[in-house]
């Protein structure tokens, strides 16, 4: 059949199918192939080609069908079938060509509108939490996972909660370590700005009784002159657990777990006896230097250890004064400065930066993991 015609054998195309020896159907197909091979690049060329073959009036395809009339009746059916096949082929080819032209056109358009992908992106504007908030929330999250609740207390306190109930007798030198801002407003127990978060322990124990397990983050005040390592306001967090059989061993395990969660596995803790009026026994907690991993460096003054928190078992007088029987319940407490932890984690040089409200400082910490100081 004519399908098998070799295009190479075709005679040159003529504008009109002739009743010559060559087959007009094959000839039309041949002309299309030739036209496409010649290259159709623009929409205008394409439209011309489409008109030439498929144009309603003078298109080669309608003309082909028009020629059927001139054929002998016996050939008409065969010719008709071949012409229809050719028409389908031509329509498909032109359809594909149309798509190709559209594709090329849009490609050209897009190239013209190409962006410089290296120009800055327009990031959705987000702000940032204060680094102390980030560290505080990290600490809160660690303790929440360990089943601690988060308690809150007033920054304006009185002598009773800040000192007396915590076993600081009046006229005791232990008060000297906590230079206190006193507030001028007459009250039975003198008003002051709390010097530590420990008064929240007393408030919570009196409110809730035993057992309890909580942390107390918050702002505290001491009359310190402002310099790189001292600020009249700073922030503490302390943990308190009161239950039957709570011991120094529970304190050690909890502190070690907390430090490993905050500073990474392998952070070790060392406990040294010390004195706080509201604990007995009392301990200072030193952690293995996070900068030199305990080898000794300038940051830890060569000792391999950094003093980080205070701790101890809750003093029986503090428990009893808060309405908890110290024979039935024992407890531990430990705590430290959030500002100092932030300073260790982020490595900024001066505590004053925390309170200046400079966006260049405030923008540095959000959306990132806590720093790994090593």
């Amino acid at each position, binding site marked *: 059949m004519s399908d098998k015609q070799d295009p190479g054998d075709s005679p040159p195309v003529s504008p009109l199918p002739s009743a010559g020896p060559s087959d007009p159907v094959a000839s039309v197909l041949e002309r299309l192939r030739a036209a496409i091979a010649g290259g159709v690049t623009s929409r205008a060329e394409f439209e011309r080609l489409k008109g030439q073959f498929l144009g309603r009036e003078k298109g080669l395809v309608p003309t082909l069908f028009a020629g059927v009339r001139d054929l002998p009746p016996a050939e008409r059916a065969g010719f008709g079938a071949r012409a229809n096949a050719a028409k389908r082929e031509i329509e498909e080819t032109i359809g594909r060509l149309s798509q190709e032209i559209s594709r090329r056109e849009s490609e050209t358009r897009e190239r013209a509108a190409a962006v410089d992908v290296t120009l800055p992106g327009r990031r959705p504007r987000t702000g940032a939490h204060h680094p102390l908030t980030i560290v505080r929330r990290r600490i809160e999250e660690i303790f929440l996972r360990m089943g*601690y609740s988060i308690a809150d207390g*007033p920054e304006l306190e009185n002598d009773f909660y800040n000192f007396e109930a915590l076993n600081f007798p009046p006229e005791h030198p232990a008060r000297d370590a906590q230079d206190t801002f006193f507030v001028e407003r007459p009250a039975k127990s003198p008003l002051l700005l709390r010097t530590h978060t420990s008064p929240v322990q007393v408030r919570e124990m009196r409110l809730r009784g035993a057992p309890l397990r909580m942390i107390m983050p918050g702002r505290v005040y001491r009359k310190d002159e402002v310099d790189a390592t001292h600020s009249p306001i700073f922030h503490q967090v302390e943990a308190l657990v009161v239950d039957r059989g709570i011991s120094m061993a529970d304190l050690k395990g909890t502190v070690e777990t907390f430090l490993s969660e905050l500073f990474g596995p392998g952070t070790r803790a060392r406990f040294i006896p010390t004195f706080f009026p509201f604990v007995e026994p009392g301990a200072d907690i030193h952690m293995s230097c996070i900068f030199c991993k305990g080898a000794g460096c300038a940051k830890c003054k060569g000792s391999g250890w950094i003093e980080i928190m205070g701790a101890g078992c809750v003093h029986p007088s503090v428990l009893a004064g808060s309405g908890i029987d110290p024979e039935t319940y024992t407890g531990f407490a430990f705590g430290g400065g959030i500002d100092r932890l932030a300073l260790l984690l982020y490595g900024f040089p001066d505590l004053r930066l925390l309170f200046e409200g400079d966006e260049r400082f405030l923008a540095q910490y959000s959306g990132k993991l806590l720093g790994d100081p090593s």
Partner: protein
Amino acid sequence: MKFALEWIDEFLASPPPADRARALLDQAGLPVESVEDGAARGGPVFDVEITPNRPDAMSHRGLAKEIAAMSGTGLAAGGDVPAAPGAGAGGGEPVESSASVTIEVPRLCRRFGALLLRGISDAPASERVRARLAAIGAKSINAAVDATNYALWGIGQPLHAFDFDKLPGGVVVVRKARRGEKLVTLDGVERRLEPSDVVVADAHRPISLAGIMGGLETAVTEKTRHVLLEAAWWDPAAIRRTARRLAMHTDASHRFERGADIAAIPEALSLAANRILESAGGALARGLLDVRGTPVKARRAVLRLDRLRILSGDAGLTIEFARDALARLGFQPKVRGRRISVEIPSARLDVSIEDDLVEEVLRVYGYDRLPSRLPPATVPGRHLEPRRIVEESLSDGAVAAGLYETIGYPFVDRAVSERPFALWLEAAGMGEPLTLANPLDENRAALRATLLPGLLDALSANARHGRPDAALFEVGRAFGRKDGDPEDPPSLESRRFAFALTGAARTHWSAQPSGRSFDFYDAKGLIERVLEPWIAPEDLVWKPAEMEGFARGAAAWVETAVGVLGVVGLVSATEREKRSLPEAAFVGELLVDRIPTLPRQARFAPYSSFPPIDADLSFSHPRELSWEELAAFLSGRDLSALESFRVADRYEGPGVPAGRTKTTVRLTFRSKERTLSQEEVNRETDRLAAALREQFGVVF
């Protein structure tokens, strides 16, 4: 506090190497902060941190006792401390024949000991005394004064040396100061005394501020021939009161405030006397003047093995270990079954109860040897203060909106910085300022009643540093609620959320024109957004606010059903200029205590699946007609299928008469049952237009 290792070693039976000594002091809770490697000073000098409960450790012998107890190696016999002089010590005239001591305040002076040295010459202290004092940074003056310092640093008992010839009749009286009495102390300062001060006096006048500093007039000089050495025990609270009142702090007061060892008095006197005699000659009068006040009771305590095991968490601790540890520390333990009763050494004023003994045993045991474990699991934790959850949510909302959190100092000059916001403070329920009795800066003695001035200052700092486009917020407390009760401190506090915005709302190179300034609606929208989890924006009522701190006509009160919740607005020109802030500077503050702590509940609301038709209505109206009135009117119309409406545009300028505003309202119609026709929508819109014309006389 500095201590020479060589001096400590003198008291030890087998002195350990420096590293070991340091480790033992750490274990004891007397950490060595630093070590000076003083070859020139005869060995290392330790800088030891001594907590205020351990006055007994504030001497070379005190530290030696701790090292000995921790290591279990024991003390050397005597050292250079001679046996305490008894009544038979010294020679010649008995001291009682020339001197007398009377204690008029027996509770405040429990013991007063004195030795009399006759015929001394003016001489420097011995080479050894001077070298030791120099090693720890103490000055040498003369044999008598150096000897008292030597005893203080050697065994911890402060002493004082009087020029005996200046005490008429050798009479010494320990009493309260009399009103109007004065004393020039050794430092040359004249001190006005109060009847609460304890003094050592002669027959007529005070000669020493007890336990703090001696008087200048009776001090030992190069002319002194006879010396009366004093060593006493003073009431800590009394010493502290006087020292604080007079702002004095001396080596003596430091120890007496914390509590001295009443038993060390005779040996301290003996030690100092020997040091004087060895270099200044002279002779010790016979006998020790030893006058007692109210007796100090022997103190006892009991340690139960069970308590030791519970508090330590170490079931391996034995009664034998506890007994040995307490014995090493000088507690004379006696075991009865599972209990140990002890006699507390007179120097250990920090020990009184059973748990103190637990700490003593654990110090010797070593905290590092204690086991480590976690308390058993329990219920999940949560925020106990619901307002903290509100604060955290406000903070998250502000960060999501692009603001940076800041923290400011709460110390202000109320009259200057907060006065422009006085009306706000009143609305917020703030009363008279709370002021500090002892502020760092007299000009900032008040506690803040609003966070706004602090935020404005922070904006200003940012502007100075080249960031005029700053967006900051703070969550914190203000102080001085009018309804607060001073007996209940929390009731005086007020929780706040505040923010400040300046300059361009958003800057990006592609924005044309480059960015726009923040405006009132940014500030208002921020409040609506951060409150959304707690209060629906439509439940907030906005009313114009006027006060000095805000530009006229560009500030608002935010209210809810319970009253004023906050304030927001454009900062007034005066406040901006004070701080060199850009023109677009907005601040706002909310009262967190007035935000409901019950969060809004999310519920599914069904919506239409048919297409909407929008219709715009543009009309002009007097400026005074507020959107609130228009919106209320629109909401009140019963328009069929009106889904929502909003302001699409506001315009004033050419084409709109002066005093009038052109508002375009975009109405969105949508049916839940069917697709609407344009004709229906037009009909409704026309109806609405007619109603607006009738109600407000708007012009289309």
